[in-house]
């Protein structure tokens, strides 16, 4: 009878039979994805993130295609046509030396995106390195590096940036360095805390138990798993770097003329707010949009990569 059969089955240790051992996998249950594909899928569903992506794409193209979009040069002055309001000739009007604002904004997109890119890359490389070292090796190395981070973070970032620029001299490049420097502890801390929490993870301990060397553990196990917060911070950092560069530009400590950096454009036009508001409105909106774009993407990435991540 069936009951007997059942009984037998139980005693006939199914172990030796690989077919039964091959634990049943309901193929439908399996998501055919890698962690990265998963993220992309997530992102595609996030309307905010897509908007952000489109905004950035727009500015990238705007910057790249600038020479095709406009016949003016970003430094070509036309003193006879200063402070012209927006018109079919000058879509965004002209500034106080008669340059076409649309053109300057287009070329300015290049500047801002580059600033974001280099500042973030610099901060990311050094921050990640330091954070990694501090987090992984701990002890006095950690104490020293963390203290330095603490101290750097005790200064309001823009103030520190101003001081750095004051030391190095005012230029776009130095502003960029300053922004990178102020961002190092931010990345560093994120990486450090991530590494510390990962260090306690069992799969890292497992890696050590396999007899892996520190280098391998750091680069093959810890780094890829710390990527999520780093990527999110990098995206958001892109935005803040652009904002900071604009602030430095506005204070005259960033890009120097005739570089069409948006913050510097605002600084140069601040006296014309009543006379020619367009000289301020368009660069301001551009900054806002680009930063918004990065924030939207960063937010989306945060949700996609690690919904539980905060800050």
């Amino acid at each position: 009878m069936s009951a007997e059969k059942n009984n037998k089955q139980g005693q006939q240790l199914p172990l030796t039979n690989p077919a039964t051992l091959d634990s049943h996998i309901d193929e439908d249950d399996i998501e055919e994805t890698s962690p990265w594909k998963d993220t992309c899928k997530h992102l595609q569903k996030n309307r905010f993130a897509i908007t952000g992506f489109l905004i950035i794409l727009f500015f990238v193209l705007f910057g790249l295609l600038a020479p095709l979009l406009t016949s003016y040069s970003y430094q070509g002055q036309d003193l006879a046509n200063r402070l012209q309001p927006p018109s079919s000739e000058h879509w965004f009007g002209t500034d106080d030396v008669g340059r076409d604002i649309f053109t300057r904004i287009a070329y300015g997109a290049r500047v801002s995106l580059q600033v974001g890119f280099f500042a973030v890359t610099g901060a990311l490389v050094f921050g990640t390195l330091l954070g990694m070292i501090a987090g992984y090796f701990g002890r006095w190395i950690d104490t020293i590096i963390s203290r330095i981070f603490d101290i750097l973070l005790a200064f309001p970032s823009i103030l520190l940036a101003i001081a750095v620029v004051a030391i190095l001299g005012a230029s776009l490049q130095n502003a960029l360095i300053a922004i990178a420097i102020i961002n190092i502890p931010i990345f560093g801390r994120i990486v450090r805390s991530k590494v510390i929490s990962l260090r306690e993870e069992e799969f890292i301990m497992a890696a050590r138990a396999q007899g892996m060397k520190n280098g391998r553990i750091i680069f093959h196990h810890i780094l890829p798993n710390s990527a999520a917060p780093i990527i999110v911070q990098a995206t958001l950092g892109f935005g803040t770097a652009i904002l900071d560069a604009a602030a430095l530009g506005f204070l005259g400590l960033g890009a120097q003329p005739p570089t069409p950096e948006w913050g510097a454009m605002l600084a140069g036009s601040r006296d014309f707010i009543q006379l020619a508001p367009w000289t301020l409105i368009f660069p301001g909106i551009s900054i806002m949009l680009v930063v918004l774009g990065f924030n939207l993407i960063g937010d989306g990435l945060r949700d996609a990569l690690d919904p539980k991540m905060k800050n």
Partner: protein
Amino acid sequence: MTAYIIRRLLHLIPVLIGMTLITFSIVHLIPGNPAQTILGEAATQEAVKNLEESMGLNEPYIKQYGIYVTDLLKGDLGTSLRTKAAITKEIWPHIAATFELTFFAMLFAIFIGVNAGIISAWKQNSWFDFLAMLFALVGVSIPVFWLALMEQWVFAQELGWFPAYGRENSRDPIAAITQFYVLDALIHLDFPRVFTILKHLLLPSIALGTIPMAIIARMTRSSMLEVMQSDYIRTVRAKGGGQFLVIYKHALKNATIPVLTVIGLQTGVLLGGAILTETIFSWPGIGRYVFEAINYRDYPVIQSGILVIAFLFVMINLIVDILYTYIDPRIKY
């Protein structure tokens, strides 16, 4: 808890030492010559040299640092090279001005941010939530100085609703006692003046407070949402607690902790951001004081100003940490 506070204070010591080291080195790294600065555009090299000597600028760095720190401990921030006035005396009104501005900016940011965050979390995925969060995202993306200029243009120039500059009506200055004008006016029981001062505070506070407001709103929302998924909230519900009890008693208090951290950190951002806002709104604050000092290479002022701002920032975060202990009984280490 006092032990915690003491430990927290002791923790500050290395940070403070590091800060003095940094401010000291910033000043020594900044190219330029203080003696030249004092003597101005028409001084001879020799005069510069003499002055350097009398100022002790040719001493070894270690010794200069020692003197700097000893003076600091005595509460002496040095003398401004430009104005020859004692910085300790000169800096206070600037700190007060910035503090007042930062305070109101933060007040604005917290009030709007926290409430928007709560409502967003409560009505998750509603149109309010959507708009508030979109607005918050835009808010974190606006350059402070641009917002300030636009406000000035629209509300001071075009509409004339608010004053374009300063802390109060310049025709009729207050007899300052504490240098916190709102407080001073209250001490004088001069309520119309309180109103005037608040009116002056409004535009710069909004300009300065927008970014923190947006960040606080987002933080409040996400931390509320997270808390609302927690087990203990489910417990409250299982006891028969309604949405109001859940949100305003349990969720809010628990969500406050990360929000407080953000508030502490954002205050630092505000102190920094004040440099821009203060220039645009002619606010005689510390940011402008330092920035001008950098422009004129007024080294002692740069040094002290940066140090004081950083110190304030550290203190605010200390207060935040201490506040935690009131909110969160778990903190005791």
